[in-house]
């Protein structure tokens, strides 16, 4: 990988007169010692698996702990039978995010993006953009490479693991990746992509990883919804020309620093925050 920061990735793209996503594909092809076309098709498989994870949503499933299941269907019914306050478009993103995250909790097949806990964010945004805005699948796959490039740089300079950096590293990263891909889909330039991702990340800095009973369910599933919506609104800010005062790579640095300073009880140990509440302890006790 020939880039270590967002700025380096953009400079590479500019000097080679290529798009952001093309650099990500090209560098991956080099590191796998294969052709760009094959890398592109590999990503298509990921996208198709994301689609399947939504198509195969089963509203009757419950997670092994009994805490999760059925909320995606609840959201869908609300949208169908009411005039949803978030509007039809955002409501579809919300329900897709829950469906995928619930499927994960119920031992169904998902695509980690970047993790299993945050697997609902990217598909929620991309599937609904494809279906509602009529983008070609190839363009969605390009957007997935935009997301992947942003994720690579966050993983390298901060973290994409709740155990290392708290939930800002999982839902925060997923949201930043998705925001970048939305900015790309909507015709934003590279500055817009970077700032969309950065604004999304900033909004979630400091988020604790405090899963109840140590399971990827509470608060994870609903955080996928806020991560997805945050991606769309952050992209809209960037497309409107709003810029993060703190430059993108510095924000990633801040995220890493917060992750280091975060106490261990808020890093996936299931011992702090929500996991340490009275109700969480009762739930955990009943599962032991």
């Amino acid at each position, binding site marked *: 990988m020939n880039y270590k920061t967002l700025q380096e990735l953009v400079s590479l793209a500019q000097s080679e007169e290529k798009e952001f996503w093309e650099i990500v594909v090209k560098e991956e092809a080099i590191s*796998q010692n294969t052709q760009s076309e094959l890398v592109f098709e590999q990503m298509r498989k990921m996208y198709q*698996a994301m689609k399947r994870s939504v198509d195969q949503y089963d509203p009757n499933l419950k997670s*092994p702990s009994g805490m999760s299941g059925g909320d995606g269907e609840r959201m869908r019914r609300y949208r169908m039978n009411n005039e949803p306050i978030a509007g039809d478009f955002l409501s579809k993103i919300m329900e897709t995010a829950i469906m995928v995250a619930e499927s994960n909790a119920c031992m169904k097949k998902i695509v980690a993006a970047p993790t*299993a806990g945050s697997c609902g964010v990217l598909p929620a945004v991309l599937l609904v953009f494809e279906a509602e805005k009529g983008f070609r699948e190839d363009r969605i796959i390009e957007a997935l*490479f935009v997301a992947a490039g942003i994720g690579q740089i966050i993983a390298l300079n901060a973290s994409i693991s709740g155990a290392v950096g708290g939930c800002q590293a999982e839902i925060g990263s997923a949201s930043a*990746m998705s925001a970048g891909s939305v900015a790309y889909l909507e015709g934003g330039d590279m500055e817009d992509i970077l700032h969309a991702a950065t604004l999304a990340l900033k909004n979630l800095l400091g988020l604790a990883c405090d899963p109840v009973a140590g399971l990827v369910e509470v608060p994870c599933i609903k955080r996928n919804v806020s991560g997805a919506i945050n991606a769309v609104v952050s992209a809209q800010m960037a497309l409107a020309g709003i810029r993060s005062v703190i430059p993108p790579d510095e924000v990633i640095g801040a995220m890493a620093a917060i992750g280091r300073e975060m106490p261990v009880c808020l890093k996936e140990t299931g011992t702090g925050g929500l996991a340490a509440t009275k109700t969480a302890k009762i739930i955990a006790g009943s599962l032991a």
Partner: protein
Amino acid sequence: MNVFDIIGPIMVGPSSSHTAGAVKIGKAAAKLMGERIIRAQLLLSGSFYATGKGHGTPKALVAGLLGMDPDDDRIPESLVIAEKEGIKIQFGQADLQEMHSNSVLMILEGAHGRILEVIGESIGGSRINIARIDGLEANFSGDYPTLVVHNSDRPGHIAKVTGMLSVQGINIAAMRLYRQGRGQNAVMILECDQEIPKDSIEQLEKMEGIEKVTYYTLEDADEL
């Protein structure tokens, strides 16, 4: 990091470490057995034990023992499948102090009488480490074909093994040696760039001073 470590893998949820990693550990153990498993005792430790049930860790481990991969839709039904195939599975708790908090001790019995003890750790993402085999250090990731040779600590054994590999044109990517003490049980771990043919492994097993040979192949077995 690879693009498909960021978007991917495709896996059965809910957890890359407690579910996907557990499937990989089970599958690695099944490969190391090299014969059909008829009985398995799975002793979970640390966070595998504490949160394993909610994460489907027991089902994931058994799915792996049955040869499944982390994206196999049948993972949630693995216990039923194992029962149908007549595999006796027993779960319990182990206290593996020096190991990663996500770890399991597996005691396996094969159809031809082979007994194998494997400790596997899920070390982050869905990456795994096979930490011990039959109580001796192993520490390999399962990314390469890996030969594990238990022998008595006497001169010449290492040369015999590496000599065999060089005759076969097999390149060694990494090699580690451990022993319990001078002249006692020793183990060689050889991660290779190519697969080792079956008859070479059988040949090794017959060599004097070699106590046990365990081989981890990247190929999928047709029958486990």
